[in-house]
């Protein structure tokens, strides 16, 4: 099974090893660190859950069945937050190889959720800035 990011309702960016995600439909925003950020980037790259699971079990120290179940619950949580959906399309041929570097002890991935800016995010109140056209925008 593969997942895909729920664009265009979800936007995301990795800043200094931290993944920041905004769900533009709910107004919630999220931070992913460490294992969670690693998994997110492999989902973005197009890897399926099975290959992500294999990679985690190879790269991290820990009980393989626990790693597997933590990955599944993490994926369920991402789905529950409306950040990803199942992707039935076959994996593209050019899915990049997962970095095989050793990562150390497996710490279960978590999603940090913030709901304190829903009013601002839901309204798209961000100012329209286009110096060429002026404030506000004009056609």
């Amino acid at each position, binding site marked *: 099974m593969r997942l895909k990011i729920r664009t265009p309702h979800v*936007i995301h*960016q990795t800043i200094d090893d931290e993944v*920041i995600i905004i769900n533009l439909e709910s107004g919630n925003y999220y*931070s992913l660190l460490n294992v969670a950020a690693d998994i997110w980037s492999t989902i973005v790259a197009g890897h399926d859950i099975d290959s992500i699971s294999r990679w985690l079990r190879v790269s991290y120290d820990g009980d393989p069945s626990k790693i597997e179940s933590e990955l599944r619950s993490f994926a369920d949580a991402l789905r529950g937050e409306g950040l990803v959906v199942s992707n039935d399309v076959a994996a593209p041929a050019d899915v990049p190889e997962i970095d095989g570097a050793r990562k150390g002890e497996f710490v279960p991935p978590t999603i940090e959720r*913030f709901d304190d800016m829903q009013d601002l995010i839901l309204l798209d109140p*961000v*100012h329209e*800035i286009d110096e060429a056209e002026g404030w506000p925008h004009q056609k």
Partner: protein
Amino acid sequence: MFDPLVSVVLPVRNGSRFLTDAIESVLAQTYPHIELIVVDGDSSDGSDEIAQSYEDVIYVRQSLPPDEDGWRGLPDAWNLGITRARGPLIAFLSADDRWLSKKIATQVALLDRDDACYSTTMFRFFLEPGYAVPPSFRAELFGQDLVGRIPETLLARRRAFDEVGLFDTRYSAAQDVDWFLRSQEMGLPASLVSQVLVEKRVHDSNLASNAVINSPALLEVLGRSIKRRRDVASSSGTQSEHLG
């Protein structure tokens, strides 16, 4: 009753189409003690003439050209207005939006009652006659009373800017979101007026491309806020919820 001076900062850059409406809505305020500062971002469409045709408008022209490296026109204009403001209370209006006449009077009274550092109000969107709803705009927002932590609803004590700082011109957009986040992180007491006192005009289709353009800045603003909160989280507790 003592009415402290309220300085209103109204930035405009080639916004002549609705500028008169915006200015008139400030001049029509029932609150008696207001100065209106129009900060002109080098307009070439007659916005300057409109602003200067009002005797009571303080007209300020930005001196930096818009193509200067790192120059962020709108937050720069807000900041310039703040530095020019003489009042202990500062408010903001966009050149395409308008206030209801009791906006400032209502907020000044509640700011004192609540002993808050700043206040925001509810607002409504309205569609400019003759325009279609932009495709990306959530049509269900029309007719709703919306909570508005946006500059157009903001009335802040000057000390709010002393404590939080000015709008951060490092960001290409979402500088207002950043300011509200920083004020929230610092625990500045705020009050929300539960009345619609601002009307925001929807008048073209730029919201669509705008949302895409603004996304990286918004992500960066939120990311930096999370980092700041994480830095102090050990002592004060986080505002987030861990899942999974």
